[in-house]
């Protein structure tokens, strides 16, 4: 399985993501934001956390208009897999690949701690290794993670099984406790919590490992 990790100025979880994906068995290449195309044969694009372009204008707004994002959108439209974590989730919402937007946390403070996440009732390669309703412990680290969608879209996401993860104790005010959302075809996932930071027993837990391993396994099986 071949994965590309996109690097923007201000990305700071790109290498963590690459390490975790390699540990899960992926062949990983780093791709710079000014590139206009992805390497040949990429199965998964990972958009990492950080503060791309200093969060100027809006979180993820400038990154979403960078040259590489045109290629990422095409990859997704062809049915390719995309994982956006934290700032990567913000970027995916700004590209329009995922609905909604991420606003300032309800309490206005930056939150960095491990939170319980509840796996949603959904059918996706990202959640295949988990059981719906299972509780995972995954770190969050964000200032703008307050997921907002209109009521109709929120209901649609819920009915269609597109809420991949919910917070067990909503830390940021997100609508319907949403922590992670899938595209309609289930192949694009955006989530605020960091599974790549919970993928090594030496670094505070391994609950995120199955997400990456499931993804690599699903694509190896194709």
């Amino acid at each position: 399985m071949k994965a590309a990790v996109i690097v923007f100025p201000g990305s700071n979880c790109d290498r963590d993501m690459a390490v975790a994906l390699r540990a899960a068995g992926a062949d990983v290449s780093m791709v710079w934001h000014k590139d206009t195309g992805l390497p040949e044969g990429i199965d998964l694009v990972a958009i990492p956390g950080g503060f791309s372009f200093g969060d100027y204008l809006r979180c993820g707004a400038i990154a979403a208009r960078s040259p590489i994002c045109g290629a990422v959108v095409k990859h997704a439209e062809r049915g390719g897999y995309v994982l956006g974590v934290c700032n990567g989730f913000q970027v995916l919402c700004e590209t329009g690949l995922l609905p909604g937007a991420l606003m300032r946390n309800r309490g206005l403070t930056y939150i960095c701690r491990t939170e319980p996440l509840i796996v949603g009732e959904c059918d996706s390669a990202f959640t295949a290794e988990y059981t719906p309703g299972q509780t995972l412990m995954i770190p969050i680290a964000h200032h703008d993670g307050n997921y907002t969608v209109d009521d109709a879209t929120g209901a649609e996401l819920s009915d269609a099984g597109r809420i991949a993860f919910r917070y067990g104790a909503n830390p940021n005010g997100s609508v319907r406790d949403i922590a992670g959302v899938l595209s309609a075809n289930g192949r694009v996932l955006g989530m605020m919590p960091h599974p790549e930071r919970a993928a090594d027993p030496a670094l505070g837990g391994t609950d995120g490992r199955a997400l990456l391993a499931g993804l690599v396994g699903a694509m190896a099986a194709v």
Partner: protein
Amino acid sequence: MKARVYVMLKSGVLDPQGEAIRHALGTLGFDEVDGVRQGKVIDLDLADGTDPARIDEMCEKLLANTVIESYRVELL
């Protein structure tokens, strides 16, 4: 020519920063403040004769996130 773009959160979208400002004004004794909404002002320096439709396009494509924000353009 110059244009000024005002970007505000849509009504109905909760504005945690505006709410914090309202709270702080209340703490300072400005009890008459019932609500605060915070937005952005973006000034554009444009080539003379720029079609205003182009400015709308800039707002739609980048300056505002129309999922949560509305915008208004003022030609200066």
